[in-house]
């Protein structure tokens, strides 16, 4: 602003429309989609040592996706009217896609979990392959919810759905690593030393995979920020808001340093064989992704529109 003294005498700004319920919903669908993809990979590879992971994640995916929409309904001003979403759909709204995806995906996930647990490999594989696009779209559409809300410069970028998908993968793998490590530590006593070693190796492999996806996530965030900073003025403000503004501690501190760089060092650095370090990394990753949801949903709305 270069035009001398300007004071706002009176202006109206309405409350933030979307609160953290929405961010939490994004977080839970992300976890669910991530763990479903891991489960299907385990099923498709079909090796015996992958089975425990495949089973844990098969149950996690639908369970998390039953929690997620509760956040959405709690956020509605008229929760008892949620059925309007199905009766009065609007095909140009990403929320309409979401309401149908959020119905189809948990049903699919439950059937898939039954197939995995009853050891019907062929059916599980077919359902898994069919389910992956569904899992990706269930989480990808949440990125479109933000990207298509044109008014907010932080959201309105083409990178948004991809960033959401990739960070979902990161947090999903993180959760699987935590649960698999807990199982390995306390609930795996009857297993022979060989299978315990195998399980440990598997968990370490998963963590390495997570570190590579964190790299992809960091690259996407970098490209998003670079374009924000060089695009129009609102986008520049949005970029500066998360880089140096009020959301910098959460974005740079928690999301980038605590939630991405430190876990990457823990998983790929000298502590890469240490189970505790890897669990700590997975917890940090989940904190980082939760902070990312907060920065995106709340931060995107805090720039005044008038």
């Amino acid at each position, binding site marked *: 602003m270069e035009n001398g*003294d300007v004071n706002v005498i009176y202006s109206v700004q*309405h409350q933030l429309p979307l609160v953290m319920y929405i961010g939490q919903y994004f977080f839970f669908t992300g976890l669910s989609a991530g763990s479903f993809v891991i489960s299907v990979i385990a099923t498709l590879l079909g090796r015996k040592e992958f089975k425990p992971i495949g089973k844990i994640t098969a149950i996690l995916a639908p369970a998390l996706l039953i929690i997620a929409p509760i956040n959405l309904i709690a956020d509605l*001003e008229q929760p008892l009217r949620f059925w309007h979403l199905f009766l009065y759909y609007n095909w140009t709204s990403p*929320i309409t896609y979401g309401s149908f995806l959020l119905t189809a995906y948990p049903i699919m996930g439950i059937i898939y979990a039954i197939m995995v647990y009853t050891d019907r490999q062929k059916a599980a594989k077919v359902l898994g392959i069919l389910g992956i696009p569904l899992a990706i779209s269930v989480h990808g559409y949440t990125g479109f919810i933000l990207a298509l*809300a044109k*008014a907010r410069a932080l959201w309105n970028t083409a990178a948004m759905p991809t960033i959401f998908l990739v960070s979902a993968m990161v947090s999903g793998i993180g959760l699987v690593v935590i649960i698999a490590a807990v199982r390995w530590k306390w609930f795996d006593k009857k297993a022979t030393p060989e299978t315990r070693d195998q399980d440990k190796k598997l968990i370490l492999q998963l963590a390495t995979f997570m570190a590579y996806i964190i790299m992809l996530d960091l690259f996407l965030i970098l490209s998003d920020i670079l374009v924000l900073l060089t695009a*129009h003025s*609102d986008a520049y403000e949005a970029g500066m808001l998360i880089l140096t503004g009020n959301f910098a501690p959460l974005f740079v501190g928690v999301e980038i340093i605590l939630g991405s760089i430190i876990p990457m060092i823990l998983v790929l650095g000298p502590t890469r064989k240490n189970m505790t370090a890897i669990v700590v990394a997975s917890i940090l990753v989940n904190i980082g992704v939760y902070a990312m949801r907060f920065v995106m949903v709340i931060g995107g709305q*805090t720039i*005044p529109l008038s």
Partner: protein
Amino acid sequence: MANKRYAMVIDMRRCIGCHACTVACKAEMAVPLEVNATWLKIIEKGTYPDTRRYYLPRMCNNCTDAICARNCPTKATYKRDDGIVMVDQHRCIGCKYCIASCPYDTRYVNPLKNIVQKCYFCSHRVDAGLQPACVETCPTKAMIFGDKNDTKSEVAQVLATNATVVLKKEMQTNPQVFYISADETVMSNVEKDINYRTEGTLIKIRI
């Protein structure tokens, strides 16, 4: 005969910043406390003795390409044939996605009814052949409302013979509230710039 297309022109050369439009709107539409369907934005520019206040009456632009109507998941927000963007208060579920999508911050959650509302150009009055409450109240006749497709209407003639601007043209929404002689600073995102300059941070968080 083309369809009706309602539009409003606000002549800032005539506006005296009296808030009568805000009050009329509050009374006519029973807008609760804390929220506004119409309001007057006021800024002050310059240092004494060279200062002046600039006004900007704000309301829903009833955009031709309304992002809110496109994004509403239940079609509770819809466009009438005459261009007025409506909210069906029995259908709205209050997901607030329209508020997040609106570049003009003109939508609000009615804290008494728990649904989203906004300015409808007083559609009930327009249907009865009256002018919107703010237009009828404006003591300096700064607001002109009518069918811009009807070449004999005042609004069409004023639009054709004056230099007009709209808010945030870059959003591709095609707003139907036009301003004559509005100041660039008051139309811009001035609050954002001021916070950035005076406090070193962009925004005060308001939840």
